[in-house]
């Protein structure tokens, strides 16, 4: 074993193991975050982390909260629920954080749930599935709309257009499958029968096979695609390629300008439920959400030269909700902060108006969603 190679290897290992561990000091309000900034859900977690970092820095310049500086301790769970569980334990036991903003994906949130409930520390989740808050868990709240709400908003619009035979094409990811489950549940409530039920893989590069099958279903009037990332864009382009005239609905998962860029002209006429953030400029002047969403969009653009995504908005709301509760509780006592969170009413966030209660740890209603349609390449608000 040549001397030189052994030293080189020792250097690699000591460099990896000797990284500075965050200094501990008592004062600041410590916010723990476990987000997926790499792996399949990486593009969801990335804007969430950037939003937290930007706003915490800004708040610290304005003197922090209750005169205490804010400190963010973040770990990346690489879209793996097992790692999220491990890092949550590190935040609770080792870093001793005051509250958690964690769980880009539903899987990660549910993996941390048993820990949080046992340790007794508030966690605000950024994941979409309704299972996060149903049945209600004492210490767990969430800011994103649920997939059930998205399905209901879509079915409301379909009923108005007289559609009753609808197809469902869902993604085999956490978001897609729980969305599909909720869609199947609420369909009858709106007198809609699902005449087709197909799936596609999150990283699929071609869905013409599934679409050809759906197109062949007799009497089908519309298609709901439940997924996020590149999948729905591939479906939209394939539908155009096949010359399908079927009205196409998407989930709030793709309510972002990235979808327009990817789908291109094929997206014309596509409808979806979307948070206010996407159509900030076309909101009515007196709309209570307008100032919030426009300032968030401006702040994010100034910092990253990129449009904010709805998923980043969930993180901002979680941060403001958490700090609002700490102010209301006058400190970072976990039980007090939890109670304050539960009593939050009429709180305006980028996602919508939060009216929490002992039985509803999300507090959003259908008004938080706006139906939008793609008209000549941009989003237009439908009322």
């Amino acid at each position: 074993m040549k001397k030189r190679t052994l030293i080189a290897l020792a250097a690699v290992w000591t460099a990896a193991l000797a990284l500075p561990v965050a200094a501990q000091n008592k004062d600041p309000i410590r916010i723990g975050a476990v987000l997926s900034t790499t792996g399949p859900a990486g593009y969801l977690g990335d804007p969430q982390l950037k939003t937290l970092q930007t706003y915490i820095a800004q708040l610290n310049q304005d003197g922090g909260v209750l005169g205490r500086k804010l400190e963010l301790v973040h770990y990346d769970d690489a879209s793996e629920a097992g790692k999220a569980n491990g890092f949550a334990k590190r935040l609770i036991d080792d870093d001793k954080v005051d509250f958690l903003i964690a769980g880009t994906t539903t899987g990660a949130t549910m993996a941390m749930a048993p820990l949080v409930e046992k340790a007794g520390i508030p966690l605000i989740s950024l994941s979409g599935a309704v299972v996060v808050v149903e049945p209600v868990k004492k210490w767990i709240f969430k800011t994103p709309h649920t997939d059930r709400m998205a399905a209901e908003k879509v079915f409301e619009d379909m009923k108005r257009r007289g559609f009753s035979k609808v197809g469902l094409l869902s993604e085999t990811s956490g978001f897609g499958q729980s969305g599909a489950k909720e869609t199947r549940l609420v369909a009858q409530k709106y007198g809609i029968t699902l005449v087709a039920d197909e799936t596609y893989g999150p990283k699929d590069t071609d869905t013409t096979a599934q679409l050809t099958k759906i197109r062949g279903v007799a009497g089908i009037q519309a298609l709901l695609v439940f997924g996020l990332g590149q999948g729905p864009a591939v479906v939209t382009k394939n539908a155009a390629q096949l010359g399908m005239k079927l009205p196409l609905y998407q989930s709030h998962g793709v309510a972002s300008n990235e979808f327009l860029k990817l789908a291109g002209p094929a997206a014309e006429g596509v409808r979806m439920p979307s948070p206010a953030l996407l159509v900030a400029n076309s909101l009515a002047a007196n709309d209570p959400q307008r100032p919030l969403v426009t300032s968030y969009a401006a702040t994010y653009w100034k910092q990253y030269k990129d449009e904010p995504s709805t998923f980043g908005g969930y993180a901002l709301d979680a941060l403001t909700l958490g700090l609002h509760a700490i102010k209301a509780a006058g400190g970072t006592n976990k039980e007090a902060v939890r109670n304050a969170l539960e009593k939050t009413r009429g709180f305006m966030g980028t996602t919508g108006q939060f009216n929490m209660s002992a039985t509803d740890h999300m507090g959003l209603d259908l008004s938080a969603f706006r139906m939008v349609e793609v008209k000549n390449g941009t989003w237009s608000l439908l009322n």
Partner: protein
Amino acid sequence: MLTGFLQFLFSGLTVGATYALAALGFAIIYNSSRVINFAQGEFIMLGGMSAVALTGLGIPLPVSIVLAIAVAAAVGALIEKFAIEPAGRADVVPLIIITIGASLVVRGLVQVFLGKGTHALGAFSGEKPFVIAGATLLPQSLWVLGVATVVVAALGWFFGYTRYGKAMLASSHNMLAAELVGINTRSVLLLSFVLSGALGAMGGVLLAPITYTSYDVGIMLGLKGFVAATLGGLGSGMGAVVGGLLLGVLEAMTAGYISSAYKDAMPFVLILLVLFFMPNGLFGAKTTDRV
């Protein structure tokens, strides 16, 4: 019902052509070094992503494409120089881990510099699909199939009729014998990585307009390329092409006729069945133990 079948066939062949290019990349490297290059998928990703990044800087599409292929070829050379060569005569498992490490480094760098979003590359010649008996075919698919055939033919010529090509084949059968007759096997290994890097990038660039690209598309495409190469018989060029096309078509048929949920499982079920009955793949060379 014909339109359905034709549609499945077209989409299968398009995706299959990329699997074939990836499988060829595997075969070339396996041939000259017995290394299974798990970073092959990242070359495909690198092709697509660098083309998107370059066009984003305003560089015209054709130039961006050539540069993207060059970038992937250069990365292939770097991996060979700094990972495969220092490893020397390591055996199968450590070499597999080294190439996986290399794929992590490539993916990590692209993720940091080109971000995590999904990108699309403009189609080479428009988006208006051709309609054949009800089934539609994108012009880009023709580009994929056309370029793939040209590349396969060129490789057939290179390995069959040029001195350097034959040198590469010789060193794949017996590294020592090749060295004894004066073939610089080190540069053969380097060329094989450069060539398969370029091949992978070509596949990535061709497919990007149809299927988008992001920093992590390489993982599944690489695995499918490995399945296609093994299906055809490791190290056999013909096997790689046939394996790739067969895989793409069968995948589309599974999605169409069986269940779209198990589309991704099909290649692996297929490879298990093939290996159970033909332990050396469809065209792989039979090897008997010499005692």
